[in-house]
C-alpha cells in the first residue's frame, strides 16, 4: 500500500514562479540536495533533510534561464542555459553566475540531460543530441536538424516526443549506438483527445511510455529499446491502463510520473470542480492507493527523486515523501477513492449505479463509467436530439405530476437499454430531489411504477425509503422491502417501527399487497372482521383496542391457550407488512442495536405475531405457512430469537409479555420433546434402511444381465 507522508514546503522565499511554474527540479551530485530552477532567473540549491537553501544563483537582469540547471555528476559542476544558447558551468563555490565559464552555442538548447555515470547530453530544439564535452571542445560547431519544422519537442526523457499536426511521434536515440528511430504513436479512435503529460520508464527490453490524455485516461505504449528497423517510421499502439484518473477539462495542467513498476503518481483534479490532488495509483490492480488534496493549486508539474515527490503548491515548492510497498490485492482494494468523504463519491472502479446518478443530475462527472461514455457517444452520433431519458429528467424538474406520469409510462414502454437500471436510478433521484424541494410534490404512482421495474436497489436511490418513511407510505415501503436486496438494517428497523406503530385505521386506507397473508389468517380473518366492525361500532382508538385486547386475553383467559393460538394478534394488512420485514435480508450484528429502540408494547405485539406464526407453522407436517410467499419457519424463529436477544430485560420486566413468554416457553418445550422422540424414530429407521441395503448387496458372486446400446 502506498502512503503519502506529511508534506513540507522547501523555500521560505517565494519563488519567482510564473504561471508556467518551475523550470525544473534536478538531483544534485550529493544525496538529498536538489537544484531548483524557476522560470525566471534563479537557480537554488536545496538540502532536503535540513529543508534549507545551500546556495542561490541568478543570471543578470534581462537574461532569462531557458533550461533547468543540472548537475554534471562526473565533475560535480552545475550547468544551466540562459537565453537559449548561452551555456554556463559553475560549482557551488562560485557566487556570481556572470563570472563563471560561459560557452555560446550555435543552436538553441532544449534540455540538458544528465544522469549518474555518464557525461551530460545536450538536446537541441532541432532534435540533435551532443555530448557536453564534445560540444565544449567546439561550441560553435554546426548542429544538424533532426526533426522537421512543424514538429515541436513536447517532452523528453532519454528520448524525444514531438508534436506534429495532431500526431505524436517518439524519437528514440540510444546513448551508445546513436541510432535514431522514429515511432508514431497511434492514439486510436478518440481523435480530439490531447495528450497532456508523458512519462517513461525503461526496463530491459522496452521503454514504457505512459501518457495522460485529456480524457483523464492513462495509456501505456511499449517501445522496443533495440529497434528492428531504424530507417522505417514505425507505429506503436497504446493500451489503456487506467481510466478517469483526473478530470478531463482541468483548468491547470496535469502531470504523471511513474514511481515504480506498479505505481504512478498523478497530479490533477479528480473532478472538474474539485481541488487538485496528488494521488498514487496502482496500475496492476487499477486502484487508487492514496490521494492528497492540494487546495492552493499547482502548476501541473511533478518531479520525483528517490522517495520524494516535488510539486509547486501555491507559491511554494512542496515536497511530499511517499512510500510504495508491494501491494496485495486485498490491500489494493482496501482504499476507496475518496475515503475522507464516502458519502458523496465512490470510486469508479466499482462500476455502479451511483456514478451514473451523478450524470443523471446533469453534472459532468469525470467518474463516468465507460458504459455511459460509450452510450453517450453513440447517441450523440446517431441522434443529435436529447435522449429520452434526458428529456424525462427535464420533465421531472419542471412539469406537473400528471405529465411526469404519462412521460414515464412512455419511457418505460420503450426498449430497455443495457444501462436501464442506471437511468431508472437517475429518474428516481430526480423525483426525490424535487420532492425535497417542493413538499407538495408527491409522485407516488411514478415511484411505485419505477420500483416495479425490478431494477432498483437501495443504494441506487437511498433517499427513496427515507421519503417514504417520512410520509408513512407503508405501501411504498412494503414494495421497497420486497424489491430491494440491500436495505440497511437501520432502515429495516425504522420500517418495522412504523409498521408496528401505525394505526389500524390508517392501514385500512392503504393498498398493501396481501399475498403473503392471504390464506393462513383465513381463520383469523373472520374474527378480525368482527373485531374491525366492533372497532367501528365502539369508535375506539384501534391501537388501544388492540393492546387492551391482548391484555384482556392475557388477563381474562390465562388458561385458555388454544383459543389464543388461533387468533392473529394483528390485522391482515399489518401482518402483510410485518411479513415483508421478516423476508428482508439482515445481518444480526447490525440489526440488534436498532431493535433495542422499539417500544416495549410494540415488541410484545410483534412477538405475539411471531408466536402466532410459529403455532400456525407447527400445524402442518411440512412446517410451512400457506400462501404464495409466506415467511419460512427459519425466518420466524430467527426473528423471535433476535427480538428476545435485543430486548431481554424489557420483555422480562413488562407484565404484558409474561403470559406470552410462558406460552412460548411451553410450546418450545413441547416441541423439543417431540423432536427428541423423532430423533429416536430416525435412529430406528436408519437401521431399517441399513438392513434394506444389505439385502440389495448381492454377495461375492452374481450373474447380471448387461445390455449395451
Amino acid at each position: 500500500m502506498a502512503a503519502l507522508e506529511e508534506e513540507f514546503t522547501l523555500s521560505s522565499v517565494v519563488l519567482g514562479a510564473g504561471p508556467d511554474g518551475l523550470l525544473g527540479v534536478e538531483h544534485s551530485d550529493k544525496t538529498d540536495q536538489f537544484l531548483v530552477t524557476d522560470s525566471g532567473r534563479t537557480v537554488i540549491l536545496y538540502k532536503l533533510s535540513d529543508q534549507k537553501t545551500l546556495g542561490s544563483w541568478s543570471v543578470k537582469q534581462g537574461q532569462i534561464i531557458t533550461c533547468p540547471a543540472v548537475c554534471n555528476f562526473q565533475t560535480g559542476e552545475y550547468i544551466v542555459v540562459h537565453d537559449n544558447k548561452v551555456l554556463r558551468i559553475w560549482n557551488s563555490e562560485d557566487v556570481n553566475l556572470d563570472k563563471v565559464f560561459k560557452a555560446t552555442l550555435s543552436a538553441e538548447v532544449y534540455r540538458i540531460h544528465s544522469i549518474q555515470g555518464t557525461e551530460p547530453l545536450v538536446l537541441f530544439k532541432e532534435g540533435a543530441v551532443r555530448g557536453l564535452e564534445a560540444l565544449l571542445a567546439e561550441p560553435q560547431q554546426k548542429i544538424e536538424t533532426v526533426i522537421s519544422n512543424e514538429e515541436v519537442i513536447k517532452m523528453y526523457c532519454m528520448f524525444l516526443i514531438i508534436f506534429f499536426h495532431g500526431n505524436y511521434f517518439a524519437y528514440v536515440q540510444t546513448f551508445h549506438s546513436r541510432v535514431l528511430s522514429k515511432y508514431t504513436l497511434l492514439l486510436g479512435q478518440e481523435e480530439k483527445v490531447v495528450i497532456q503529460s508523458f512519462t517513461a520508464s525503461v526496463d530491459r527490453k522496452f521503454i514504457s511510455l505512459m501518457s495522460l490524455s485529456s480524457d483523464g485516461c492513462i495509456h501505456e505504449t511499449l517501445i522496443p529499446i533495440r529497434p528492428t528497423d531504424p530507417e522505417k517510421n514505425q507505429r506503436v499502439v497504446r493500451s489503456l491502463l487506467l481510466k478517469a484518473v483526473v478530470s478531463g477539462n482541468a483548468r491547470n495542467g496535469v502531470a504523471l510520473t511513474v514511481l515504480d513498476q506498479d505505481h504512478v503518481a498523478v497530479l490533477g483534479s479528480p473532478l472538474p470542480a474539485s481541488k487538485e490532488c496528488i494521488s498514487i495509483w496502482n496500475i496492476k490492480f487499477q486502484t487508487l492507493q492514496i490521494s492528497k488534496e492540494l487546495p492552493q493549486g499547482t502548476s501541473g508539474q511533478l518531479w520525483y527523486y528517490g522517495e520524494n515527490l516535488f510539486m509547486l503548491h501555491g507559491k511554494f515548492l512542496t515536497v511530499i515523501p511517499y512510500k510504495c510497498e508491494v501491494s496485495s490485492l486485498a490491500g489494493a482494494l482496501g482504499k476507496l477513492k475518496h475515503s475522507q468523504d464516502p458519502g458523496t463519491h465512490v470510486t469508479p472502479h466499482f462500476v455502479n449505479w451511483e456514478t451514473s446518478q451523478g450524470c443523471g443530475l446533469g453534472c459532468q462527472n469525470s467518474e463516468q463509467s465507460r458504459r455511459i461514455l460509450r452510450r453517450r457517444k453513440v447517441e450523440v452520433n446517431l441522434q443529435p436530439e436529447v435522449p429520452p431519458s434526458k428529456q424525462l429528467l427535464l420533465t421531472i424538474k419542471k412539469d406537473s405530476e400528471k405529465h411526469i406520469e404519462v412521460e414515464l409510462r412512455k419511457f418505460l414502454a420503450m426498449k430497455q437499454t443495457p444501462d436501464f437500471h442506471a437511468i431508472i436510478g437517475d429518474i428516481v433521484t430526480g423525483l426525490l430531489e424535487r420532492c425535497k424541494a417542493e413538499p407538495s410534490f408527491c409522485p407516488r404512482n411514478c415511484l411505485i411504477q419505477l420500483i416495479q421495474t425490478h431494477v432498483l436497489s437501495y443504494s441506487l436511490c437511498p433517499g427513496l425509503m427515507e421519503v417514504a418513511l417520512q410520509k408513512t407510505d407503508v405501501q411504498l415501503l412494503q414494495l421497497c422491502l420486497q424489491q430491494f436486496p440491500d436495505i440497511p438494517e437501520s432502515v429495516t428497523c425504522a420500517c418495522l417501527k412504523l409498521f408496528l406503530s401505525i394505526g389500524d385505521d390508517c392501514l385500512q386506507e392503504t393498498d398493501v399487497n396481501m399475498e403473503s397473508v392471504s390464506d393462513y389468517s383465513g381463520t383469523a380473518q373472520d374474527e378480525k372482521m368482527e373485531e374491525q366492525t366492533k372497532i367501528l361500532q365502539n369508535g375506539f382508538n384501534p391501537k388501544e383496542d388492540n393492546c387492551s385486547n391482548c391484555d384482556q386475553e392475557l388477563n381474562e383467559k390465562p388458561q385458555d391457550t388454544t383459543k389464543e393460538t388461533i387468533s392473529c394478534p394483528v390485522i391482515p394488512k399489518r401482518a402483510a407488512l410485518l411479513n415483508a420485514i421478516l423476508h428482508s435480508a439482515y445481518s444480526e450484528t447490525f440489526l440488534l442495536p436498532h431493535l433495542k429502540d422499539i417500544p416495549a408494547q410494540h415488541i410484545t405485539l410483534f412477538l405475539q405475531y411471531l408466536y402466532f406464526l410459529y403455532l400456525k407453522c407447527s400445524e402442518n407436517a411440512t412446517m410451512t405457512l400457506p400462501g404464495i410467499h409466506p415467511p419460512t419457519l427459519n425466518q420466524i424463529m430467527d426473528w423471535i430469537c433476535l427480538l428476545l436477544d435485543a430486548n431481554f430485560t424489557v420483555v422480562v420486566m413488562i407484565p404484558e409479555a409474561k403470559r406470552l413468554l410462558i406460552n412460548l416457553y411451553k410450546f418450545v418445550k413441547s416441541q423439543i420433546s417431540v423432536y427428541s422422540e423423532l430423533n429416536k424414530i430416525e435412529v430406528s429407521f436408519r437401521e431399517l434402511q441399513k438392513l434394506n441395503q444389505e439385502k440389495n448387496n448381492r454377495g461375492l458372486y452374481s450373474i447380471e444381465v448387461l445390455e449395451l446400446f
Partner: protein
Amino acid sequence: MGEFKVHRVRFFNYVPSGIRCVAYNNQSNRLAVSRTDGTVEIYNLSANYFQEKFFPGHESRATEALCWAAGQRLFSAGLNGEIIEYDLQALNVKYAMDAFGGPIWSMTASPSGSQLLVGCEDGSVKLFQITPDKIQFERNFDRQKSRILSLSWHPSGTHIAAGSIDYISVFDVKSGSTIHKMIVDRQYMGVSKRKCIVWGVAFLSDGTVISVDSAGKVQFWDSATGTLVKSHLIANADVQSIAVADQEDSFVVGTAEGTIFHFQLLPVTSNSNEKQWVRTKPFQHHTHDVRTVAHSPTALISGGTDTHLVIRPLMEKVEVKNYDAALRKITFPHRRLISCSKKRQLLLFQFTHHLELWRLGSTVATGKNGDTLPLSKNADHLLHLKTKGPENIICSSISPCGNWIAYSTASRFFLCRLNYEHDNISLKRVSKMPAFLRSALQILFSEDSTKLFVASNQGSLHIVQLLEGSFKHLHAFQPLSGTVEAMCLLAVSPDGSWLAASGTSAGVRVYNVKQLKLHCTVPAYNFPVTALAIAPDTNNLVIAHSDQQVFEYSIPDKQYTEWSRTVQKQGFHHLWLQRDTPITHISFHPKRPMHILLHDAYMFCIIDKSLVSSSLLPPESSLESL
C-alpha cells in the same frame, strides 16, 4: 450392441502388501516403491504414473531401505543384512552382498552418487564405494551403541547425520569419527517414554539437521554446535518418515496416524529476508502408518501400511492446471493377476504365494438389463496351489482348454497338467523343466492350448509344444543383439500364427510363429505399452499405451490401420485421455469385429470403430472394479 451375461466376481480377495520405502529419482522422474513382501516396483511418473517394472519379492528379503545411486542404479537393503542391486533392464536381482553388520535399517547414497552408506543393527555405519558393476566395502565409521535407523548426507558430502535410538550422531566423512551427539528428549507430553527412536533425519546444506522421532516431534538441530534449535510436536504417535525437496525450501513428514505434514521455509514477514520453517499443510490420505515419504519437485509422495501409494501434487508448483494436478492414489498393481479358461469357464487368481482356481457358476434364467439372475450353480473353488520356496509368484496362466497351469517365480518355472474326471480334479506337475526355463516374466498359451509362450527375463522368448503330459521345446527367439530388455507383455493371434511381445521401452515386436522368425517391429512410442491383443480374422494388433492412446496395427500389412490413422489425426476425447489408470486388458467382441473391449481397474469400455467419424466419445457404459 447386444446382451451380455456379466459374472460379477468379488471373491478374488487380493490384498497388496504395505509400502515400506519409496525413492524418487529426479533424473528419470521415476519412483521406486518397495513393499513389505520384498517386491520392488518402479513407476514412471512421466508416463501417467504407470507401474512399468517390478521385481518379485522374497520372504526373507524384508526391504528396509531403498535408494537410487550413480544415476539410474537402484539399491535396496533389508533385515537379512544384504545390499541388493537390481538390474533394471533384465528385471532381476543383479547381485546381493552381505554388509556383515546384521540387519540393515537404513541406506543412503552420497550426493555425488558414488558412495553408499548403510546403517546396521550393530550400530555400525558402513561406507561402500559404487563401482561400475558392483559395490565395494570401503570402511566403517565409529561404531554407535545401538542400531542406526536413519542416515542423511550433507549436500556437500562432508558430513553425515545418523539417527539412532535416543540420539543423533553427526559424522565427519573423511575421518569417520563422531563430531556431535545430539540427545533427543524422551519426554512425550510430560511422560517419559522408554525410548525415543529417531525414525528419520535430513541434513540441510546450511548445517541444519531435521529429525523426526517416535515421540511425535520434528526437531531442528544445529549440527555445528550440536544444539536443538526448534521443536514441533506434530503427532500423538510416531513420526516415521521425512523427505526434503531438492531446493531445501520444503519438506514432508509422515506420521503413524496416517497424516503427512508439509513444512515450508517461508519469510517471517513479507519482504523480509529472514525465513523460518512453518508447518503449512496437513494431508490425511492414509488410514494407517505412513512409513515413507518422498518429495518430487512438484508433489508429495507417501506410502504406508494401508498399501496405498499417494501422489499429492503441490498446487503452487504445478504450472498447468491439468489432470496432473489431481491427487493420485495407486493401490492395485498395473498388471494382470487373473487368467481365464474360456472353454471350462475357469478363473485362475494369482496371489503372492499361491494360486486359486475357480469355476464360474451358471444360470438358466434370462432377464432384462440390470437384472441379477438366480444362480443354478454357484462358483466353485477348485484348487489352491501353494508355491514352494520363499519367492513370490511373478506370473501365472491357465490354458484356454483349462488343462494346463503354468506359473513362475524368480528362480523356478512350474508347469502342471490338470485332469478333470467329473467333479474330481487331479494335478500333475510336469517335472524336469529345461534349464533355460528357469524364470519367466510372462506366460501365454496359444488359443488351441498346444503351444506355450514364455518370456524369460534374459530377453528371450521360448515356444514350447505341449503334448499330453509332456512338452517339447520348439524354438527360442533371442533378443536383438545388444539389448537385454525383458519382455513383459505377450499376445498371440487366435489362429496361432503371430506372436507380439513388448518390453518396457522399445517397440512391440511381432514374430511369425509358423516360420519362427521376426516378422516386424511396430515403431516405438514415447509411452510404455500397458496391454496388447491381436484381433481374430484381421490379425490387427491393438496396443494400449499408458497415456491412454490406443493404436491398431495390421500385422499382415505391417502398417497402422486406416482407423488408427484417423483416430490419431482426430485425437481421442479429452475425457478418455484424462483417465489415470492404465488399460490392463484388451479383448474383442466375438461377433462384432468393429468392437474393441478394454478394461482397467475401474472401468470396462467398448470402442466402436464404426463410430470414429465423431470424435471418440467417453465410454457408454462402465462396470465397477472387482
